[in-house]
């Protein structure tokens, strides 16, 4: 186990690099999952209301809209409103125009409101429909001879009467693995790729330095034994990193994992294994830190965008997903989405995802062994010297 011991010594010497990367990515992972509510899929209309009329009638409308939608209190200046609409922190910005109550009493509906417009989003369509409905209802009641104050009350009550909506659940996938917590595991492939490759590859590259390799090639140790000891060293490091991330996951989960969460843990363990093998493969193929940074960033960020880590898989086009299928992260995210109930859970498909990930690990291992056998054989190295 000389190589294994040497690996651990080199790792210890490069511990600052590893600690910096793991610390930073741990911070990023926690920030990503902590802000799920702010950055996740929108489930209700978020709007701001600016009341320029300031009458009991306009206040009543603001109150009704507040009960129906998520009202965000923001500064009434054009720059703030533009930023909020552009970054989708709100979906609609309504202004109740001056003279609103007078027009309403006269049964008029034109020009009651203004709305800042950036693009025709879903939230704009919904909110505008509701505001128009409210104006139409008050106008209809007033036309029917009902006094304005009562018409406003009736219209408000009608608007707030909930319709009979049944949420169909075709599976029980998300019981022990809520979607909010699943965000932590969803972002994990990016974190694992970035943290493990950035921290482990420099150590592996030192182990593969020419002077060290010349000495090793002269020794009695077999190439496969050398590579397997390197894998073992890498595996110990990856296991430690994975356990740290699982520990943080348990803290965010609020205790020991239950039910489907264990499958998510298994999923992440398989992905960590793939990342470990990838790290050995990458380190065996390159020789400089700058190229390593390039590969880590392109692999980490690129696969995250096309496999559904940063953008949900349902939102990606079929062409993008067709490309994404070639990356293990795609199968990881697909299973994660099934486990938390974002997509329909099918046990056979879940098993397929796990098997494909295992297949990736095996295939990458074979390729790595082959590359290392070719690249680090004595004859090859001498020819390159």
């Amino acid at each position: 186990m000389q190589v294994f011991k040497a690996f651990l010594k080199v790792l210890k010497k490069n511990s600052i690099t590893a600690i910096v990367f793991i610390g930073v990515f741990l911070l990023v992972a926690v920030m990503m999952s902590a802000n799920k509510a702010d950055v996740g899929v929108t489930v209700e209309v978020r709007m701001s209301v600016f009341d320029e009329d300031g009458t009991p009638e306009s206040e009543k409308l603001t109150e009704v809209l507040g009960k129906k939608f998520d009202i965000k209190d923001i500064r009434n200046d054009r720059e703030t409103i533009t930023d909020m609409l552009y970054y989708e922190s709100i979906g609609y910005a309504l202004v109740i125009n001056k003279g609103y109550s007078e027009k309403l009493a006269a049964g008029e509906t034109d020009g009651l409101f203004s709305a800042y417009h950036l693009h025709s989003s879903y939230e704009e369509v919904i909110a505008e429909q509701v505001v128009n409905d409210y104006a139409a209802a008050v106008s209809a009641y007033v036309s029917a001879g009902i006094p304005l104050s009562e018409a406003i009350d009736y219209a408000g009550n009608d608007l707030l009467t909930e319709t009979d909506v049944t949420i169909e659940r075709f599976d029980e996938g998300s019981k022990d693995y809520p979607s909010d917590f699943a965000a932590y595991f969803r972002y994990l492939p990016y974190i694992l790729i970035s943290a493990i490759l950035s921290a482990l590859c420099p150590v592996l590259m030192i182990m593969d330095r020419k002077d060290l390799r010349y000495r090793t090639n002269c020794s009695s140790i077999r190439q496969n034994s050398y590579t397997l000891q390197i894998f073992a060293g890498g595996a110990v490091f990856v296991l430690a990193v994975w356990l740290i991330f699982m520990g943080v996951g348990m803290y965010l989960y609020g205790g020991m994992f239950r039910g489907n969460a264990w499958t998510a843990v298994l999923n992440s363990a398989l992905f960590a294994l793939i990342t470990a093998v990838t790290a050995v493969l990458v380190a065996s193929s390159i020789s400089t830190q700058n190229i390593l940074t390039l590969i880590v960033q392109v692999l980490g960020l690129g696969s995250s965008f096309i496999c559904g880590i940063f953008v949900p898989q349902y939102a990606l086009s079929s062409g993008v997903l067709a490309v994404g299928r070639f990356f293990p992260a795609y199968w990881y995210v697909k299973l994660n989405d099934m486990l938390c109930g974002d997509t329909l859970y099918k046990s056979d498909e879940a098993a397929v995802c796990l098997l494909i990930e295992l297949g990736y690990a095996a295939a990458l291992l074979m390729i790595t062994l082959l590359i290392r056998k070719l690249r680090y054989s004595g004859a090859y190295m001498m020819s390159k010297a």
Partner: protein
Amino acid sequence: MFLHNFIYELKTAIRTKDLVIWLIVFPIALGAFFKVAFHGLYEKETLFSTVDVAVVDEADDSSFRAVADNITSGDEPLLNVSYADREKAMELLKNGDVSGVIFTGNELSLSVTGNGLDEEILKTFVEQYNFRSRIIGKSAECGGAEAAQKAAEALTREVTSVERIPLTDGNTNNLIQYFYNLLGMVAMFGSTTGLHITKVNQANISALGARKCCSPTPKSVSLAASLTASYLIQTVCMLLSVSFIAFILRVDLGSSLSVVYFTSVLAGTVGVSLGFFLGSIGALSEKAKESISVSVSLLLCFCSGLMIANMRTVFDRKLPWFNRINPAAVISDSYYALNIYSGDNSRYFRNIITMAVITVAFALLGFALTRRKKYASL
């Protein structure tokens, strides 16, 4: 002396092929990934598109069918309705072919599988339908048949109570911000070239650094030449990145390209200065400094929204001052301001001034920290 050093620094930097390749290949590779991933995403996720729905019309409700026919006509109808029996409709819902199932009856009811925006559109439609019949009923209760008739007539009138105020003439596709952040990241990763300056000038890191420390050339001249050469290399990388994104990927960066080029050049200097400063701190090994530089750059890019676009607004709400000093956020905000606030340049100028101040401050700090490092002190 400066010119002599500058030329040799430039030659050395160009010969550090992996560094230059990394700075050029990185935006090309990641930009291509972005282009593929975001193809059609804005139209699909942000802009409204017709919602697919199944209708189980067991009550054979002719008035509903009339409303449904009306709402499904036009260029971009609100709904795309398929009539089906209960079993078939639920199958469509289960397979995700429709976003919901509407059941007719005394009042409409709705079945959905989630609570996204498609479902919210369906809920609004069903509520609107039920809402109108309730208004007529209540008017009849209060004022008899005549009142109900008047209310029904009023409800047939088309209501357009909202006047839209357009906010910008720029490109409103908010996925462009990922490209702004990509350019920000390329600029921030210019810190690796900045770091290279300290590597070749610090005696305990490289043999070249050791020789330079012994040479009679004043350290300030040598550092200034290195820094200028790095600015130039980074400028070329930034210009190539913008050209690739604008002309090859054909991404509409949303404003005058010459100003985008100018912004990118300045952004590049921010990254180099940051790397120069980070490299000058302490006497850590090359690898430790590289890891700190990459981590800091990545963290700043994450906070400006490279991975998750809304992170910028999260910081705007929780730590607004941070976005004003985070170089990555300032860089991406400059492109954003150019695009969205094309008529009012005050925000853009504020960002440009911030970038210039950051560049000068980091460069001066780098000089101050490096010039004290004599061979003996390391």
